[in-house]
């Protein structure tokens, strides 16, 4: 039986309100092969233009992966797909072993443990730096829990630490909207840390940062890896060199090359489309 057209979308939607289902448990990830993220044959097109073209990519448990590639190669789009912001035309994305990310909504993706920092820093401009961090804090994020939520001393401690790390102690009660570009970058990194995701997607973290700050960021990301998996997109080769173990080069929506930094740097195709002479 077919539903009348206007009703069909309501049944198609797989997002369900949490009043109707048991709390989305954090599915325990069984990382049999040590891969935490499988991206297979993902294709995304916009009005006929293929932003991702059968992209296949695996990220391993605890790895720090750098992804580079020309402007418009599809790096941000790839993150959009992983975080359910964009639905691909084809392909599969699995998180851990069991979780089909393509069937989840954005908040569900976040809840199963994928955190993201956006290319253009996006913070809650009307709220203080502190509140931004509280919002990000890893905890039960359902409605009822939020109504009765209290900041535990341990959590308070945690936030203080992060503030320290991102160098915004003095700005804690300023509105996030008043921060400079670089400061917003830091704040967003701080939020990402507090989310405690198993997989961090970091889109251009050091844009607009000075050299010294870049080093700090590099240290931070390196420290995170191991315990968590980190995917970094960045155009600053100096930075990439300082953190990278394994580098993937995207070009025109597909993987062009993959390997250690040294290998990739030598690759003539990469030099041609990306690095330049």
């Amino acid at each position, binding site marked *: 039986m077919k539903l009348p057209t206007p009703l069909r979308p309501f049944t198609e*939607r797989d997002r369900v309100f949490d009043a109707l289902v048991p709390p989305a448990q954090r599915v325990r990830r069984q990382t049999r092969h040590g891969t935490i993220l499988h991206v297979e044959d993902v294709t995304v097109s916009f009005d006929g233009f293929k932003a991702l073209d059968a992209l296949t990519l695996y990220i391993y448990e605890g790895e720090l992966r750098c992804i580079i590639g020309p402007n418009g190669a599809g790096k941000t789009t790839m993150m959009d797909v992983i975080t359910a912001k964009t639905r691909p035309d084809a392909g599969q994305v699995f998180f851990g072993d069991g979780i089909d990310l393509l069937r989840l909504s954005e908040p569900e993706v976040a809840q199963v443990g994928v955190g993201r920092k956006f290319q253009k820093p996006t913070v809650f401009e009307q709220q203080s730096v502190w509140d931004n961090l509280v919002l*990000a804090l890893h905890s039960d994020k359902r409605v009822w829990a939020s109504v009765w939520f209290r900041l535990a001393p341990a959590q308070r401690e945690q936030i203080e630490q992060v503030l320290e790390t991102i160098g915004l102690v003095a700005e804690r009660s300023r509105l996030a909207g008043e921060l400079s570009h670089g400061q917003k970058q830091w704040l967003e990194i701080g939020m990402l840390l507090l989310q405690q995701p198993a997989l961090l997607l970091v889109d251009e973290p050091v844009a607009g940062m000075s050299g010294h700050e870049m080093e700090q960021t590099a240290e931070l990301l390196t420290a995170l890896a191991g315990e968590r998996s980190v995917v970094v997109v960045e155009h600053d080769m100096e930075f990439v060199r300082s953190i990278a173990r394994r580098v993937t080069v995207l070009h025109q929506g597909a993987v062009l090359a993959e390997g250690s930094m040294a290998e990739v740097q030598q690759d003539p195709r990469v030099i041609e489309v990306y690095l330049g002479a």
Partner: protein
Amino acid sequence: MGLLWASLRRDRGGQVLLVLLLAAIILVPLLNLAVPAGAPGHLSAYTVALLGKYLCFALLAVSVDLVWGYCGILTLGHGAFFALGGYAMGMHLMRQIGDRGVYGHPVLPDFMVFLDWESLPWFWHGFDLFPFAMLMVLAAPGLLALVFGFFAFRSRVNGVYLSIITQALTFALMLAFFRNEMGFGGNNGLTDFKDLLGFDLQSEAMRVSLFVASALALALGFLASRYLTVTRFGQVLNAVRDAEGRTRFLGYRVENYQLFVWVFSAMLAGVAGALYVPQVGIINPNEFSPLNSIEMVVWVAVGGRATLYGAALGALLVNYAKTFLTSAAPEAWLFFLGGLFVVVTLFLPQGLVGLLRRSRA
């Protein structure tokens, strides 16, 4: 609760509002019932009814502010919830008339008798029981809000699109309630109420009780809303207002937050409507008019958005101005009122509350 007290300590305006309400709860009955009519200081029944009406509007404004000021949902249809609450109460009052209607029919309200209804329509059953009617005061607006919000928020309707369909909603309801076939008395609505819980609606004591009930409802509504806004729930609402998409990526199901506050606010509006009807003595589909709903938003803006007490203040002030101006300057009051809105927007971007804050700073 600790959180609530802590936040109230910082919320000077809220304190003032609560103190004023407390004072009103004590003073108004005293001045109306204890001071004899004619003596100085006596508060006339007219004034009591008027104040009671203002308080209902204030509660309504608080409910609008909660969704607009804190969650960024510019509702242009909150009048629908207010009116539904009002109709629920009105239906109870109609049933209370019993066989004292003009046609003396034991069950059917007058308008049904002379439009030849055979029997009471199903949705009128149960309203003779006060507890059921009170339940419906919450449930009718709540359910409408739930169904409407469920689909709208899930489909991520937002911004002006949401505003305009809330307006369409209340407009459609207005047209529907105007229809005599609907069984709500058509354009004449529900009137000629006689008593509530066995007490004469026209009696002084009843009027004062209704006033006190309105004041209490406003105080409680304010406290509950204040509590919601200071918890993390409130922060999430703010976050949604500023960057809805980003909130999702932090793991919050935005639609549930919106739905919760939307339904809560609709129920508050319903309560306001239920208290309003016995005090003004009539409920008619005009209360669904989109213009009324826009006016509610204007109260909030005049008072000061996202402050709750500012919304209440705005409602009181604008409505007082309306009462005052329509008798003081019947031909020109629209100039004054319109002018007030213009001036407030231009010079007091944060509403009157902003003015108070600035003068204190």
